[in-house]
């Protein structure tokens, strides 16, 4: 096979893969009403995906808040702008770090778990058994997890930002000695609920869809072997992370193109 044939072959494979993934997503959307009729399953998944990711999200949010306050203070104090610390920390967290870091952590914590779970269900023929019982595995297994992920992600991102701001307050006010009133009041005057917080939430919803769909697709399409599941789990993290970073740039450009 010469270079041109290989290139054509790879391009066709890629396009086929994209089409397959798009069809998979479309079939999941069609199964949403059926999944919502089993509301208990959806609630169980919100608990499984959201609640179990809480510790890592809160711990990371706190750590990011600590570091952000320190780094920003040292930079701002050089220009005599230390009173803007609360604003900088808040905007950094709610606009960018909250959704993006939560998305990356979510892909690592919940995404890998979903891929491995679905992959092992497939390897154990549980998915095939469901199909042969005339039960649609997309409606029964995948879509409740998709809804669970999409609902959990913005809540986790908001909690990440909130804990991050509290962490920054501890470092800035209690350790460095920045004025507490100034720290909070500049946020109240300068941070817009819809433009800043709202857009951050929209970003996290988009990232929630990306992470969960990628994780479920990789699990559902995995080769039913231990190596296949391991490979699919790795792909979940890599693909989700790249998508999050790419989409973050596009969304930021669309949302914050005007000052």
């Amino acid at each position, binding site marked *: 096979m010469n270079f041109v044939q290989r290139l054509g072959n790879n391009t066709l494979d890629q396009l086929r893969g994209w089409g397959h993934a798009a069809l998979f997503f479309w079939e999941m959307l069609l199964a949403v009403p059926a999944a919502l009729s089993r509301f208990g399953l959806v609630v169980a998944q919100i608990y499984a995906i959201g609640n179990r990711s809480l510790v890592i999200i809160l711990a990371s949010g706190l750590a990011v808040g600590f570091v952000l306050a320190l780094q920003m203070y040292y930079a701002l104090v050089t220009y005599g702008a230390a009173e803007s610390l609360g604003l900088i920390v808040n905007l950094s967290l709610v606009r960018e770090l909250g959704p993006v870091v939560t998305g990356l952590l979510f892909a690592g914590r919940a995404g890998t778990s979903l891929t491995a779970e679905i992959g092992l269900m497939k390897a*154990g*023929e*549980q998915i095939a*058994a469901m199909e042969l*019982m*005339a*039960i649609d595995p997309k409606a*029964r297994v995948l879509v409740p997890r998709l809804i669970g992920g999409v609902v959990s992600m913005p809540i986790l991102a908001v909690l990440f930002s909130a804990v991050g701001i509290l962490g920054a307050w501890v470092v800035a006010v209690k350790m460095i000695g920045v004025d507490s009133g100034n720290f909070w009041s500049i946020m109240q005057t300068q941070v817009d609920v819809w433009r800043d917080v709202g857009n951050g939430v929209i970003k996290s919803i988009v990232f929630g869809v990306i992470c969960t769909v990628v994780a479920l697709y990789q699990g559902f399409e995995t080769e039913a072997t231990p190596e296949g599941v391991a490979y699919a789990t790795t792909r979940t993290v890599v693909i989700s992370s790249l998508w999050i970073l790419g989409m973050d740039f596009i969304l930021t450009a669309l949302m914050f193109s005007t000052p």
Partner: protein
Amino acid sequence: MNSDTFIEIEHVSFGYDPSRLILKDISLKFPRGKVTAILGGSGCGKTTLLRLIGGVYPANSGRVVFDGDVINTRDKAQTYKLRRRLGMLFQFGALFTDLTVFENVAFPLREHTALPEDMIRDIVLMKLNAVGLRGAAALRISEVSGGMARRIALARAIALDPELIMYDEPFAGLDLISMGVAAKLIRTLNDVTDATSLVVSHDVAECMAISDFVVLMATGGRIVAQGRPEELMASDDPETRQFVRGEPDGPVKFHYPAPPMDADFGLSAQAATP
């Protein structure tokens, strides 16, 4: 179609990769209300045949007829409607590991019926009693043995009283007692429920003992022989004799196709050297 035939395979060819066929132009009839064993070595397409009957894959050519209806895998509604009439026992049970034994058997009932919970409880306990595991209802799947898992899966497969029960390697990996129990259950369930049973296996002795008809398949999706168990046991055909007697070499070769020994070990080159 003859009403005595429940499943008919008509000139079916199938391969996951269409250029490498697993089943080649096979035609079979599975009689209604009987136990039919599909015997053959590993990889000859027995399980694939069950999947085609279940409408999991479309045949590359030919057709599969399920009680008079041609299976069209593109028609999801029709496929699901037909699947509600069958139960399948998977090789390793395919039980849902996050559910208890009771919940596994109740699963198809809860998904497909609107029965009240106390009625579901009674049906589940009856099905578990039929496989001798009523006392294990509260156990988790991680707490049951391989033989028990197979019986739980059987209870789940018969939960909705299917007209067709397909067994994929029901005896694989079982000890002698569990194997005897499984064989007796297959025969008894078939007689009691009047279902049509298809048993895919390579366990000759157990299958010959419980089947009404036997189909012998060979690698490449060929049908070597079919008939009543006693006919196959008395067959003069070398391939049939080799399989039912478990002879290591015969028409089915012991060695995987390979280049001649001389070429592989370089013996011909040595012999040519003076």
